[in-house]
């Protein structure tokens, strides 16, 4: 078992989000930072200490925090609301629907510690946040895969007029190898490795694990494509259908329930595109987890390089 939730020997960086948000806010006076008693854990202590007049801690009150952000957005601010993914999605859903998504207020919702990246147990694990956010009209949903993508995403969120939900791990995050891999644009999926036998569509922390799985499969004589789907909505359906058609063998990998997230979104897109293929989803298999270390949970609930290899073998062997 590896001690991390990314591929072994992947370089990492610290506090990509917190640093990028301060840099952005120094240039854009309308950027405000809204928190709910999780300043340190959302890396926004950097913002609080640099730009205190634009930092608002609303306390343990996520529903109110979303309403306050919507009010500030109506006055022209660009509020970034920072808390854990689980609290923003489960505790404030109606407020997000009515005060953010419906009126298209320019609010950026940033959920930390998505899926099984938190040791906090079932109360802290957002395993269906993508499903919830994706179902809201007008909502854009992104999950950057590395530190550079997170930095670029912060800027992209501010440049995008309207509601966005971003889910990211806090603190130490991986750094991908090439500039092409690090690029981020809302609505665009990126091919980070090409091979003709199968395609893995992955998002967030699953991307480096998918690349490691591709290495392992190469050793077994299978060349697979890996696509980083950093925008979950709107989905890059053109690219996804193209690579699914090319290989006819598709695996999705996400740190989320297999219901309603990337695996569902890709399947929907491929069915509508008429792209027939063998298909397997890697993700949390319709179960709650428990409190334990992230590496342990990733291993136990099948969010691992081995699980991706197995899923690829399944679609490859059945060909």
């Amino acid at each position, binding site marked *: 078992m590896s001690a991390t939730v990314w591929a072994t020997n992947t370089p990492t960086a610290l506090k990509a989000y917190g640093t990028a948000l301060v840099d952005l806010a120094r240039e854009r006076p309308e950027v*405000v930072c809204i928190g709910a008693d999780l300043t340190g854990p959302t890396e926004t202590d950097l913002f609080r200490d640099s730009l205190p*007049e*634009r930092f*608002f801690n*609303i*306390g343990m*009150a996520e*529903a*109110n925090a*979303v*309403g*306050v*952000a*919507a*009010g*500030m*957005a*109506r*006055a*022209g*601010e660009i*509020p970034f609301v920072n808390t854990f993914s689980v609290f923003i999605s489960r505790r404030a859903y*109606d*407020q997000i629907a*009515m*005060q953010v998504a*419906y*009126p298209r207020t320019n609010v950026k919702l940033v959920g930390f510690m998505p899926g099984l990246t938190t040791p906090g147990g079932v109360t802290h694990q957002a395993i269906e946040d993508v499903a919830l956010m994706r179902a809201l009209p007008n909502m854009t949903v992104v999950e950057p895969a590395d530190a550079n993508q997170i930095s670029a995403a912060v800027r992209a969120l501010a440049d995008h007029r309207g509601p966005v939900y971003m889910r990211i791990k806090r603190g130490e995050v991986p750094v991908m190898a090439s500039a092409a891999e690090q690029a981020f644009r809302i609505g665009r999926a990126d091919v980070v490795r090409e091979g003709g036998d199968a395609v893995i569509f992955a998002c967030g922390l699953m991307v480096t694990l998918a690349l490691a799985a591709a290495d392992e499969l190469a050793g077994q004589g299978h060349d697979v494509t890996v696509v980083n789907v950093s925008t979950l909505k709107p989905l890059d359906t053109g690219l996804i259908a193209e690579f699914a058609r090319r290989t006819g063998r598709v695996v999705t990998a996400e740190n989320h329930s297999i219901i309603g997230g990337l695996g569902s979104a890709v399947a929907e897109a491929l069915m509508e595109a008429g792209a027939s293929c063998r298909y397997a989803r890697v993700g949390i298999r319709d179960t709650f987890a428990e409190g334990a270390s992230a590496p342990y949970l990733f291993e136990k609930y099948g969010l691992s390089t081995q699980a991706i290899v197995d899923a690829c073998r399944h679609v490859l062997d059945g060909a």
Partner: protein
Amino acid sequence: MSDRLGRPVADADEVRTQADHVRRHVLRTVARVGEGYLLQALGAVDIFAALYFSELRLDPEVPAHPDRDRCLLSTAHNSVALYVTLAARGHFPIEDLASYGRDGSAFEIISSEHVAGVEGTFGSLGQGLSVGVGLGLSARLRERAWRTYVILGDGEMQEGQTWEAAMAAAAFQLDNLCLIVDVNGMQVEGPTNDVLPMGEIAAKWRAFGWAVHEVDGHDVDGLLRALQAARETTGRPSAIIAATRPGHPISFLLGRMDHYAKLNAEQAEMALAELDGTAVLEVSS
């Protein structure tokens, strides 16, 4: 542009005249549909008239003016009274309300923000005050003088979010925020005291750190005094606790607790006749 945003100068008599005008059109408008949140709408008319004709700095020609005062109708169900008030204030012709409640009309029974002058979408109750807090914070951050008003129903105090927002407004010392609690004592299932009594309402807001003014919600002079006092309050938000009577002042509507009341043409005519004895109802089919 901003010099058109002066506070309206209507005195209490003029506000009362406007309130009577609004009441008549609320009755006419609801009668065309045959039912609606009529009792709550009539109960809130004096509050709307006091706000829109003597308090709010608005430019109906530029409804999204950045320096306008914001008034959020958190109750939203009684939007028919807001629509009529906005029309009377000049936001759109009163004739536009002929489509009220019909399929395809922007004048939905429970308002969304498709109508000029409707600030937000609040039919899911208990959300308005939070948005008001955000607007208040932005006004301060931007060093702008516009104020934010929120009309909350007493039933909305059963929603926990209302108290999250109450706590935040006091913590941030938002003296540019004025809440009007329309205490009509009714909710879907009947009298609030039979569903879930809310106890000492004024004491609750005081305990949360607000400046509190208790008024009869049909006493225009009292409402105007309270609004002025709120404007002059510094360092904390103000709550005007306005006791209202659903259906006011129509004798045969007072005391009823119908969440969604029927109003046929004959009843509407009786109500209008009660208001001035001469009104003739024009019912379009």
